[in-house]
């Protein structure tokens, strides 16, 4: 109904930090002048390892509708193995975008012709010096490169703040490397 | 602390007003009077519904000279926790926080909150006066009513189940001090309450309180009957201090002595009228077996 709201759906597994990633983007977006930044995790029981999703809505104006996203503008996938389990692109708008943590070349992914951005975040995070399996900081770099919604500097600051006490610099570095190594394909 | 209080040196200061609504010859009245003497002025009491609610007076007259908060039946342990929490928040470190509840309010509806308070290690004294039934509502069976006892909800056959051993349940929480006492030995009770005021953490005192109307005996025999319960070995006076069990007072003196037969006790009260020989023999056997271990 409201045309001014950008709807971003984050897919991950319980424990992977999709909520944290969405929260970082929400913070960065708010700092960049989006007065509306609403992040809504999966309601109910979230179990480690199970597929989960998180809704993030951002807008220049205050957001009132808190219901989950059904027709997202963007889909962020933290784990490519989810593609076999979940219809991550369900409801994705015609001109929508998929940002994916995956190891294959971008041409090999097809979401019915939607724009796709791919980055091997899992690999880059390890390169940055993080223990294996931490992908939520890196995916933000890929998100930034693919969407251009928020400046990278602002995102890196938000990452450092969120991860204060938990390797802030390495997480920021992971995002930076992912940013530099994101391949954008599709239309 | 080991020096025992005597009638002569027991304080004359009273914290209970005469003219209250307790029944004539009430065992609770005796222990309440003694308990408050031991606790002294700097005490806050938490009381759920029980005979004590009536003893303490109907608004706007109060029979206790201490601050009292009446609370819901199931919440005594929690309410004592709340008072202690407030005392800590207000940095008042010298106040005794004392929950005083009946056997129904302790062994039945209140056991969850009491267990929670014990597990948390709250610095409170919890006194359960055990008159072995819901007396305030007119003598209905409770968890601590002994087997075979006639109550208005066990009117013909008597209670079929055994008495719940609440002090043992509380001792299983591993708290620092659990004691039993009897209205018939008020000075022993006084000393135990006094000791409880000096110890940290949760303290639990279970006091046997004969009830003339509820147990069906003449009011003059309150002390005699309370003593018989101890002398027959039915109700034992003991302390469990830091896990160490020891009999105290009149019970300690019974070790190695011949105890009175339980029939002496049962014969004094109308509530045991329907006991059959088999049950009595069974109870005597249980007591003998228990004492063989002391």
């Amino acid at each position: 109904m409201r045309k001014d709201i950008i709807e971003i759906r984050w897919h991950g597994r319980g424990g992977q930090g999709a909520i944290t990633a969405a929260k970082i983007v929400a913070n960065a977006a708010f700092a960049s002048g989006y007065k509306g930044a609403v992040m809504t995790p999966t309601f109910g029981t979230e179990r480690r390892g199970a597929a989960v999703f998180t809704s993030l809505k951002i807008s220049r104006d205050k957001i009132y509708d808190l219901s989950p996203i059904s027709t997202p503008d963007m889909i962020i996938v933290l784990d490519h193995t989810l593609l076999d389990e979940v219809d991550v692109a369900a409801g994705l708008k015609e001109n929508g975008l998929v940002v994916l943590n995956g190891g294959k070349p971008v041409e090999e992914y097809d979401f019915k012709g939607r724009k796709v951005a791919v980055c091997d975040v899992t690999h880059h995070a390890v390169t940055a010096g993080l223990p294996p399996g931490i992908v939520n900081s890196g995916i933000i770099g890929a998100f930034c490169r693919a969407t251009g919604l928020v400046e990278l500097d602002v995102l890196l600051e938000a990452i450092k703040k969120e991860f204060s006490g938990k390797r802030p610099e390495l997480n920021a570095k992971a995002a930076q490397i992912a940013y530099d190594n994101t391949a954008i394909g599709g239309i | 602390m080991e020096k025992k209080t005597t009638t002569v040196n027991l304080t004359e200061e009273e914290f209970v007003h005469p003219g209250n609504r307790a029944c004539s010859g009430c065992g609770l009245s005796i222990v309440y009077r003694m308990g408050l003497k031991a606790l002294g002025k700097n005490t806050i009491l938490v009381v759920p519904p029980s005979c004590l609610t009536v003893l303490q007076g109907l608004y706007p007259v109060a029979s206790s000279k201490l601050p009292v908060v009446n609370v819901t039946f199931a919440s005594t342990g929690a309410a004592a926790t709340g008072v202690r929490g407030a005392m800590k928040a207000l940095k008042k470190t010298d106040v005794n926080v004392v929950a005083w509840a009946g056997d129904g309010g302790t062994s039945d509806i209140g056991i969850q909150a009491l267990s929670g308070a014990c597990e948390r290690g709250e610095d409170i004294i919890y006194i359960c006066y055990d008159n072995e039934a819901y007396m305030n509502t007119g003598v209905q069976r409770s968890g601590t009513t002994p087997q075979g006892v006639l109550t208005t909800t066990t009117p013909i056959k008597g209670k079929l189940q055994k008495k719940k051993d609440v002090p043992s349940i509380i001792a299983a929480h591993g708290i620092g001090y659990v004691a039993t006492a009897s209205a018939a030995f008020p000075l022993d009770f006084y000393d135990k309450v006094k000791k409880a005021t000096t110890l940290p953490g949760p303290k639990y005192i279970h006091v046997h309180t004969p009830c003339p109307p509820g147990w069906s005996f003449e009011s003059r025999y309150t002390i005699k009957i309370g003593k018989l319960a101890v002398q027959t070995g039915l109700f034992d006076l003991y302390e469990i201090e830091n896990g160490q069990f020891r009999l105290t007072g009149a019970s300690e003196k019974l070790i190695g002595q011949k105890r009175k037969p339980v029939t002496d006790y049962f014969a004094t009260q109308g509530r045991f009228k329907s006991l059959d020989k088999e049950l009595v023999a069974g109870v005597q056997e249980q007591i003998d077996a228990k004492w063989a271990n002391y």
Partner: protein
Amino acid sequence: MTDRNFCEMISRGAPGPGDGGKTGSWRVLRPVINLEACIPVKTNKMACFNCWLYCPDCSVSKTIPPVIDFEYCKGCGICAEECPAGAITMVDEATPIEEEK
């Protein structure tokens, strides 16, 4: 802030005797102390005082001689039962006591 005095009424009892009235009227039997047999009187020592100790109703004084407060004594008879000297007898309330004769 509004002038109204909120919470003027809560149920908070103030300490005082006689919530149950003059409970002396509950008595059927009245304890009478035979001072000649009473231990503290006889020995003129602060001794015994079982009557004071066991009284459920704070109605006996710890004095020589012990004095019973008949305004509130409910007449339970515990003092008579527990007096080691047998100095207290329970007499019918209807029977006039010595001084009244």
